[in-house]
């Protein structure tokens, strides 16, 4: 079988049936990472040595009848903000930290190892996960993240996670989101990306950008694969007190005939680009085949200002040492070298006020979602921008993103899946956002969507 662009679920069956060996799989993806990774600026470190050790171990265990589950022997890539032991650098995408190493694995990396997955690469990311205010794609020491679709920006900050899955360099990847960093690369790269509920996945060993906003989650070819990965990485962790005690098991049950109740916030796509609006409008028609779609109204609150104030304040504190010492001058994006200085203008009472208003946000979001399976909206209001242009960003405040502001302030799960292409061949996406802890519901909706559409089966001309 050709493992490239084969979903994890199918690879897992082939591995389990010993039709393909983990070592063969791993070598195939290592080869692609080394050969094609530089084309997309997708990779920081190919972890060949560690990968082959893990793959040989998986092969031996499976041969002895010890199949651990669907990720056993499956290669993956991790965003380079996840700590890895063994001298593998963990650079956070930042030039001043390109030699940084840790002596332990992040909990997510440990959990994937326990599931038998094979770490083949540390994937590129926007420097410091975009927390210093970058405005254009060239904001990482590995260069601008490039989408296989049209050579445009891959999105960020999980740029390599998006482009590596899209280019068939890994079957799945781990990314992180503070505001948009999983959904944006999933949208720009035409893949599926799941942002779990805040606290669903331990953040231990992950770079902190904003302690109350950061989430880790998977990017993969299908929503079903995202569910398989979440099943392996979710769960409590004494090393991260915010990791919830709630158990999670992925429900991959059949969605045929299941009816969903979808909501659309009034004017949610009004400020989106025309091609995004058009794709979203067509998607609403398709969604009516698997459920009802109703307009909903939400309370008039300054959602984006609330989330942005929290994000800017926490990021300024998380990187206070780099900012005040002037070490940010060594970052790649010119704007990242000084923009964070402005955050000294945020007062303590401003941050506290945003946290008080956050109470209103979580209650309002839960009120709206309590009668729905999911809110739907464009995954991103704009398509991928050219590499040499500034992009529109909600986190920067030059494009509205009420779904992102609410979803991240309230820590809600959302998944972005492909829903079309522009005339120029760039992917657009659709997001499903659910109530807290309802990953299985948004995954079921996205799986139902992918059962009746084929956008997620389109591939960029990577091997042409």
């Amino acid at each position, binding site marked *: 079988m050709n493992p490239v662009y084969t979903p994890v679920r199918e690879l897992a069956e082939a591995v389990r049936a010993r039709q393909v060996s983990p070592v063969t799989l791993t070598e195939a993806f290592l080869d692609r990472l080394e050969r094609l990774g530089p084309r997309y600026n997708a990779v920081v470190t190919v972890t060949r040595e560690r990968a082959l050790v893990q793959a040989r171990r998986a092969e031996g265990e499976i041969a002895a009848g010890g199949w651990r589950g669907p990720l056993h022997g499956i290669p993956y890539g991790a965003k380079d903000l996840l700590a890895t032991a063994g001298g593998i650098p963990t650079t956070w995408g930042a030039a001043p930290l390109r030699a940084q190493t840790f002596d332990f694995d992040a909990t997510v990396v440990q959990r994937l190892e326990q599931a038998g997955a094979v770490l083949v690469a540390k994937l590129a990311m926007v420097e410091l996960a975009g927390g210093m*205010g970058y405005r254009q794609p060239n904001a990482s020491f590995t260069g601008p993240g490039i989408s296989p679709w049209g050579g445009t920006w891959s999105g960020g900050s999980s740029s390599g996670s998006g482009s590596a899955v899209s280019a068939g360099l890994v079957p799945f990847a781990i990314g992180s989101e503070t505001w948009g960093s999983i959904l944006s690369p999933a949208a720009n790269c035409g893949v599926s990306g799941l942002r779990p509920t805040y606290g669903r996945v331990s953040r231990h060993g992950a770079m902190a950008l904003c302690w*109350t906003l950061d989430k880790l989650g998977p990017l993969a070819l299908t929503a079903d694969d995202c569910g398989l990965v979440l099943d392996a990485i979710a769960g409590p962790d004494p090393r991260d007190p915010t990791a919830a005690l709630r158990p999670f098991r992925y429900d991959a049950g059949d969605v045929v005939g299941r009816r969903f109740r979808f909501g659309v916030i009034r004017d949610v796509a009004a400020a989106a680009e025309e091609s995004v609006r058009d794709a979203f409008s067509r998607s609403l028609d398709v969604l009516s085949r698997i459920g009802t779609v109703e307009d909903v109204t939400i309370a*008039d*609150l*300054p959602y984006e*200002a*609330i989330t*942005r*104030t929290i994000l*800017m304040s926490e990021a300024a504190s998380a990187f206070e040492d780099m900012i005040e010492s*002037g070490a940010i*001058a060594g970052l790649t994006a010119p*704007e990242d070298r*000084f*923009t964070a*200085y*402005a*955050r*000294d*203008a*945020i*007062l303590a009472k*401003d941050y*506290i*006020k*945003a*946290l*008080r*208003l*956050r*109470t*209103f946000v*979580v209650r309002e979001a839960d009120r709206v979602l309590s009668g729905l399976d999911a809110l739907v909206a464009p995954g991103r209001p704009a398509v991928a921008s050219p590499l040499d242009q500034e992009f529109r960003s909600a986190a920067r*405040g030059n494009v509205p993103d009420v779904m992102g502001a609410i979803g991240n302030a309230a820590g809600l799960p959302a998944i972005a899946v492909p829903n079309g292409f522009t005339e120029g061949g760039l992917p657009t996406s659709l997001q499903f956002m659910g109530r807290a802890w309802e990953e299985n519901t948004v995954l079921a909706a996205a799986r139902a969507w992918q059962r009746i559409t084929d956008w997620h089966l389109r591939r960029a001309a990577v091997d042409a």
Partner: protein
Amino acid sequence: MSEPARDPGEADLRFALVRLRYGDRLTAEQLDALRRAVETIVEQVAALATVPLTNADEPLQRFVPFRADE
């Protein structure tokens, strides 16, 4: 939500702090960009002020007392 009230003096005051702390590291162009960034922050803060809060409206994060043996 009502339109946030703007106080131009507030941005000047806050920018003065930023300039005092970091001005010697920055070019005139960067200082101009920072002034605009501070103005955006002040607009953002004004937006937060449009929502009335009472004394009972607490921050979402709750303080939890700690014991190592629990």
